[in-house]
């Protein structure tokens, strides 16, 4: 009956292949022979979720476990949701088309804060009580992992267990603990208490928070034997970590639809605005041999004709040269394109570069992040104007005619000169192009200027984010000082940035706001066409919560931050030091040049390099 309804609805919706399942490489098991069913939920559309490497890894890893079946669930687009509500179709998993309410685990990956209303929406469509406290019986257990769980507090009311750090080892531990609990007939409370003892698992219901008169946290205390701090899990021997050889090959085009090769985790750079740069420390690389074998196996199994080398900064991967030399011969033979990050191609051997066909002569993207050297020093983006211009020169010489430059505005310690500097730099790039007579298409320099949002576990976690008025003023300043017709500017909606700033550094009191906004109809907040700031403002007003308190307030170094109980390995002292250096405009060398003493090497049990 449900299956028939789904078929009927598929005839009516846009891009029905988002909801059919059945793709090559997807895994179907016999329900009768499965003990634990895991619904892996991505709180955005299929095309975005299917591009996410973490989900691919954990999907196949979980399905390799005997007696466990992991399926995929994505947020239905608004047209599908309307049809589902009309036909009373509960949210279902793609592989079996069974309602997610029948699963043991409902696991979300949280990649950005603006997906939180989608998470609540998916729970509701699945008929699952939104609040963790309202769920009875052992199943379903609602878990969440991914980078946003470094500050899980805004979702504390809704999630049973947060998984802090990398999932390859801890996910199977959690699933086995559950399978055992199911066999023994443990209650939900008993199971959650047991889960809290596994390193990397955070059970928010086992902690009590109190707030002081000024609204900041005055105490955060564990109960029932839960640890005072939850330590991030990492894979110590990254070269030996599980990596799938089979990927699901989507029927429809997704954002990244190619063989992805994860060359390393972590980043040596220490850019002060970048949360990922600190969150995934310490740096761990795979060997070129492992990667080459993996690349070959994936292409053979999937039929992909494109490989991309992924990581936070692939140009810093120390085995890049040997890896490319190992895979180029067969990629050429098999007509497979290799795509390399365009960043820092300046120190890559030209002869290899020439052989990589897929470095197509269309567009080059590049991230100076700030317009002046002073500002780049403040954010520790250790790149000079000369390096930016010489890379552009190389690109122009190689036939590129369009360049996209990424910048931020609203950074801490920013002055108007830094905003004007964005246009000055863009103009210099234009001048670089016309220094020589060039053939081909006309030049286009696009500057995408996003609004900076301070994130937890960065040196800027203490800083206020720029107000909407301030961002609007700076955007106008940017427009007023644009110096060339070849330069195109774009930026983000300041309202979206404000909301992101609130939730990034929020605490448990935001749970009520989130639920209120969801009930008013907020969904897909990261999508301009669906974002409703008016509904959000109503929700904040109704709950008596000030956005300025979370977004635009400076934190003192000794304030108890909502995420202080999460231990990502990098110490608060380090962030304070880095914050002070930022204020002085002093840069910090990258991890290979010298150790800055962030503390992450403790996770590895030895020095990083």
């Amino acid at each position, binding site marked *: 009956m449900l299956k028939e309804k789904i078929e009927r609805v598929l005839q009516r919706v846009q891009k029905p292949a988002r909801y059919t399942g059945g793709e090559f490489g997807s895994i179907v098991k016999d329900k009768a022979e499965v003990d634990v069913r895991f619904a892996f939920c991505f709180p955005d559309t299929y095309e975005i979720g299917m591009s996410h490497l973490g989900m691919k890894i954990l999907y196949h890893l979980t399905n390799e476990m005997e007696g466990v079946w992991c399926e995929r669930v994505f947020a239905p687009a608004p047209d599908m949701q309307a049809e589902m509500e009309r036909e009373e179709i509960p949210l279902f998993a793609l592989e079996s088309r069974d309602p997610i309410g029948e699963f043991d685990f409902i696991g979300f990956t949280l990649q950005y804060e603006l997906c939180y209303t989608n998470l609540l929406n998916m729970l509701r469509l699945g008929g699952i009580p939104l609040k963790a406290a309202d769920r009875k019986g052992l199943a379903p257990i609602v878990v969440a992992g991914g980078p946003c769980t470094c500050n899980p507090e805004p979702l504390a009311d809704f999630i049973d267990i947060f998984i802090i750090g990398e999932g390859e080892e801890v996910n199977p531990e959690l699933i086995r603990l559950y399978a055992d609990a199911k066999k023994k007939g443990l209650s939900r409370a008993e199971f959650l208490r047991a889960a809290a003892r596994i390193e990397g698992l955070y059970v928010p219901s086992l902690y009590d928070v109190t707030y002081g008169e000024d609204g900041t946290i005055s105490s955060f205390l564990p109960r029932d034997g839960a640890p005072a701090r939850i330590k991030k899990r990492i894979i110590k021997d990254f070269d030996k970590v599980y990596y799938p050889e089979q990927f699901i090959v989507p029927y*429809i085009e997704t954002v990244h639809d190619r063989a992805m090769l994860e060359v390393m985790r972590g980043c040596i750079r220490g850019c002060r605005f970048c949360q990922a740069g600190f969150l995934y420390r310490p740096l761990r690389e795979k060997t070129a041999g492992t990667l080459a074998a993996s690349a070959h196996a994936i292409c053979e199994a999937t039929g992909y004709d494109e490989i991309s080398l992924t990581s936070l900064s692939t140009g810093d991967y120390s085995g890049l040269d040997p890896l490319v030399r190992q895979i180029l011969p067969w990629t050429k033979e098999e007509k497979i394109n290799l795509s390399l990050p365009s960043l820092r191609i300046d120190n890559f051997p030209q002869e290899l570069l020439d052989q990589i066909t897929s470095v197509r002569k269309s567009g080059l993207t590049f991230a100076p992040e700030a317009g002046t050297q002073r500002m780049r020093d403040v954010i520790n983006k250790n790149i000079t104007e000369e390096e930016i211009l010489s890379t552009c020169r190389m690109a122009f010489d190689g036939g590129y005619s369009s360049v996209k430059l990424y910048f931020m505005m609203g950074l801490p310690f920013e002055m108007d000169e830094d905003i004007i500097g964005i246009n000055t730099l863009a103009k210099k790039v234009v001048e670089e192009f016309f220094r020589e007579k060039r053939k081909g298409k006309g030049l286009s320099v696009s500057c995408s200027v996003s609004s900076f949002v301070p994130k937890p576990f960065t040196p800027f976690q203490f800083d206020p984010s720029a107000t909407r008025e301030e961002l609007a003023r700076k955007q106008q300043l940017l427009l007023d000082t644009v110096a060339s017709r070849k330069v195109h500017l774009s930026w983000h909606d300041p309202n979206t940035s404000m909301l992101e700033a609130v939730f990034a550094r929020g605490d448990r009191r935001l749970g009520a706001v989130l639920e209120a906004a969801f009930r008013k109809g907020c969904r897909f907040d990261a999508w301009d066409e669906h974002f409703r700031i008016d509904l959000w403002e109503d929700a904040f007003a109704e709950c008596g919560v000030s956005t300025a308190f979370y977004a635009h307030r400076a934190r003192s170094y000794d304030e108890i931050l909502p995420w202080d109980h999460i231990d990502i390995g990098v110490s608060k002292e380090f962030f304070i030091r880095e914050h002070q250096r930022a204020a002085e405009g002093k840069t910090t060398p990258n991890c290979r040049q010298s150790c800055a003493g962030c503390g992450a090497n403790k996770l590895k049990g030895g020095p990083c390099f």
Partner: protein
Amino acid sequence: MKTVRFFFRKEGSTVYISHLDTTRFLSRVIKRSGIPVWYTEGFNPHIYLTFAQPLPLGCGSVCESFDLRITDDNADPADLARRLNEASSPDLPIFAAGEATFAPADIFYSAYRFTFTTSDPEGLTEQIQAFLARKSVPAEKKTKRGTKAIDIAILSSDPKISVEPDGVILEILLSSGVEDTLSPILYRSILGEACGIQPECGRILRTAMLNQSKTILTPVL
């Protein structure tokens, strides 16, 4: 080098993928299968795939085909089809191969089978019969250049109605030539509107492609 024609069915999940997505899917099937296929020359070599005729999204089929250039003249078409089928999804079986016996321009009609689920098969049968009896059914077809006025009655022929356990079955030929193509999706929506049924109640299956004298060109199951 020789050209080999492969026949495939679209069922289950692959009913919901567009022609473009089907092309990409098949390119990957070919790559996975490792059969000796010819690539276009040039900066961005790709597999040369040609189809008899695209099938609209939402329709199943038992008679789709594509042509491939095979570099090994001694390769056995049946063996190639077997290898492709192994590399494909169960929802897109590649079931036969052989020489390219007709050109896309030879196709004038497609045979479709519509299955309408209903609680009142007799009533619906009568309504469909009344619809089929109309001499003229004007409709508007969306094209790249705007809308075009067409007559559905002229572009459809040889209907057959029957009642089976899963619903009322209408088998009919729709014009499917280089000009005057009538989409089965459009046909279903006009028919559905006339008979007061939800269009999604009708499943669509392409069963054959025919030439100008209505001889079936594709394999008969």
